[in-house]
């Protein structure tokens, strides 16, 4: 039946048998390439290895864990086609609130003199709740008033920073319990980051929550007609992003053993950068947590590599900017390829 044959193959999409490489592979190549460049430059200019230094590798990951925790939330927001500019400020606010409940027993100048020496679960929960509240507010504003995510979270960015400063009239909060400081010490931040990343890697891939997140970003109209409750889902996604920013605030204040209203400034941009470098598309519908984790490490390697080569911090920022632009160009290119196919 030659005729049947013709009909079967007509309109068949091109190159049916090719297997797709996961998009993370190319990002991983960038990471390896960057590390090798620093390795070579290290031997030439500094006379030592960049990679063969456990201490340095530990610091790279440690420094980036806080950004990583935020980026896991930001990735989900960006997959829905939104953006979260408020995470850095939420880190600051959450750090302040958490620290205020974590002060040593009988410290007379405490923010709440009656509430010192509390079990550390209290400050941790306080910090998380602050983040959650900020996230729910972001999500509700976007879902119910229809204002763009950029504006809603820009407002939250300014407001939360203001609240963080107003909380103690700009004073830092010190004299925290050792038990609280332990949350941010050693490799704990890394463990928290990787646990969070693993949880949401699974959530995005294997749960209904994840499927709906991609659906909304890919086509919000089609998602609505498929019976997905868009408002409820967006609130969930922004709430999770807020919660993770709150968690990052707790980790930051524990690590530094104080709460400072200026904590987390510009973290949102690093988190967005890591997400975009990791291959998440700013137009929504595409992105993975694994990519974001690699993106976070790339940012860390660049920062650490430049310090290692004793290059000024100014140049670091210039290169970081270039990497972000490069990542977005790569994303555009990928999208065009997809359209052509």
């Amino acid at each position, binding site marked *: 039946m030659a005729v049947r044959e013709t009909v079967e193959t007509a309109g068949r999409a091109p190159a049916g048998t090719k297997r797709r490489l996961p998009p993370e592979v190319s990002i991983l190549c960038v990471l390896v390439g960057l590390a090798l460049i620093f390795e070579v430059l290290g031997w030439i200019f500094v006379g030592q290895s960049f990679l063969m230094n456990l201490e340095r590798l530990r610091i790279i990951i440690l420094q980036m864990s806080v950004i990583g925790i935020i980026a896991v939330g930001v990735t989900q927001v960006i997959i829905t086609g939104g953006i979260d500019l408020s995470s850095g400020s939420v880190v600051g606010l959450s750090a302040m609130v958490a620290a205020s409940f974590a002060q040593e027993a009988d410290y007379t100048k405490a923010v709440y003199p009656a509430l010192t020496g509390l079990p550390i679960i209290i400050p941790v929960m306080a910090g998380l709740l602050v983040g959650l509240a900020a996230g729910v507010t972001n999500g509700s504003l976007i879902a119910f008033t229809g204002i763009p995510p950029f504006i809603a979270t820009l407002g939250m960015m300014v407001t939360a920073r203001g609240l963080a400063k107003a909380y103690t009239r700009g004073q830092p909060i010190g004299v925290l319990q050792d038990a609280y400081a332990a949350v941010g010490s050693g490799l704990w931040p890394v463990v928290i980051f990787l646990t969070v990343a693993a949880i949401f890697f699974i959530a995005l891939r294997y749960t209904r929550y994840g499927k709906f997140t991609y659906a909304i970003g890919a086509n919000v109209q089609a998602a609505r007609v498929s019976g997905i409750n868009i408002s409820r889902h967006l609130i969930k996604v922004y709430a999770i992003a807020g919660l993770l920013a709150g968690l990052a605030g707790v980790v930051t204040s524990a690590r530094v053993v104080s709460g400072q209203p200026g904590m987390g400034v510009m973290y949102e941009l690093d988190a967005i950068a890591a997400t975009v470098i990791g291959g998440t598309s700013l137009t929504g*519908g595409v992105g993975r947590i694994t990519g974001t984790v690699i993106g976070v490490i790339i940012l860390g390697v660049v920062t650490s590599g430049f310090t290692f080569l004793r290059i000024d911090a100014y140049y670091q920022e210039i290169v970081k900017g270039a990497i972000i632009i490069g990542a977005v160009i790569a994303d555009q290119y990928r999208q065009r390829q997809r359209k052509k196919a």
Partner: protein
Amino acid sequence: MLSPSTMRIVRESGAVSNSEFLLEVEGVRKEFPGVVALDDVQFRLRRGTVHALMGENGAGKSTLMKIIAGIYSPDRGSFKLRGQEIRLASPLDALENGIAMIHQELNLMAFMTVAENIWIRREPMTRFGFVDHGALRRNTAELFARLNIDLDPEVEVGSLSVANRQMVEIAKAVSYDSDVLIMDEPTSALTEREVEHLFRIIRTLKAEGKGIVYITHKMNELFEIADEVSVFRDGRYIGTHDSEDVTRDDIIRMMVGREITQMFPKETVPIGDVVLAVQGLSLDGVFHDVSFEVRAGEILGVAGLVGSGRSNVAETLFGVTPANSGSISIDGKSVTIGSPGTAMAHGMAFLTEDRKETGCFLKLDVLENIQMAVLNKGYVTSGFVTQGVLTKDCEELSSTLRIKTPDMQEPVLNLSGGNQQKVLIARWLLTKPRILILDEPTRGIDVGAKAEIHRLISKLAGEGVAVIMISSEMPEILGMSDRIMVIHEGRVTGLLNRDEADQVKIMELASQ
């Protein structure tokens, strides 16, 4: 070979070529990674004629047109424009040499006026370098008078209907003094009356000596407007004929390489109880007092002009835009439908009119597209998707519907229109609906896929599903429906039984 810019200058100097053919394309081949889109294709366009291109989706018509419009460059083959060999490097090259393409997706700027859209990049200027709005308006008015288009040049394009935007696109193409106009399925969003208007414009252009390439899936249009027809299949040229010399069956045979015996096979099935009853449904300013019922196994056709409110009724039924008043009952029980989620909980499914806007998740793969709607109903245990079972069911459905895709991981973007439509149908079938609302289920898809979808709808009705089918295509409505409801300006103007309905009666009710 002339360079595009030389040719443009020659043309602008007023030199008139007297070659019989505006376009001659021969031996064209175009490959994309992993697929030969066109192979040894030929095409000739005579002055003052309408040349229809037909073929199933994926046959290569669009690729050929994109080559002619300078969007793709061919890997091989000769390309003559007015008798001169030429190689176009960009769409702008094509435009400046008198080839204009009117795309299926209209490319107009919604917030600018009609006149601004038409003359963009070529605005008449005053001596001081400002845009001369007076001249802009006059030029547009002149152009419209010539083409018999009745539109205000000053109105914003965003406020126009799809049909009127299309008129603006055509006027824009003509304003470039193009002799070759390419129209890619221009009537897919138009009502019968608007199609008539379009055809009048096309005849005017023809009389001016222009050549029109007309891509279509609609057979009756072919015989009404085209002088010649070329058929393509699987990237190959099959043949060219005068449209007077061929029959509908000839063309279908050329297109699919097989005979389609029955295009609209609605089987007679026992009609059951009333499943959905609608009483006095209204949405302020859109439609009023709509009442009807649908029984199990019945196909209720809904006819009406685009903009009559027929799609709005469907959206309201499905809870996308809840009604202001009226009642809906399912199986005799009154229900309130405030969101698509509740509609689905009552066993409804809704295939929307616009595949790209409200249907497909273009970036996601076939599997994700099929499974998305069912996740609210099943295949989920404590939040986790039971992917194994779900994938198996999706694959089964995909092969039942004969969706042509390399695998379930193919982005749906890469599928042809007909297969995208099948994916969407699969999405809804997976939810096992009892009431299926279909809005233009076969728009813009090829004949083969169309017949398959019709057979499927008929089969579903046979299984006791109540079907509501909205369509602009008269043969589809007449062939498939048990009863036909006609909507005009937001009101039901008639309900016809299958045996009493005909094209004339429906048109009368739809345009009183």
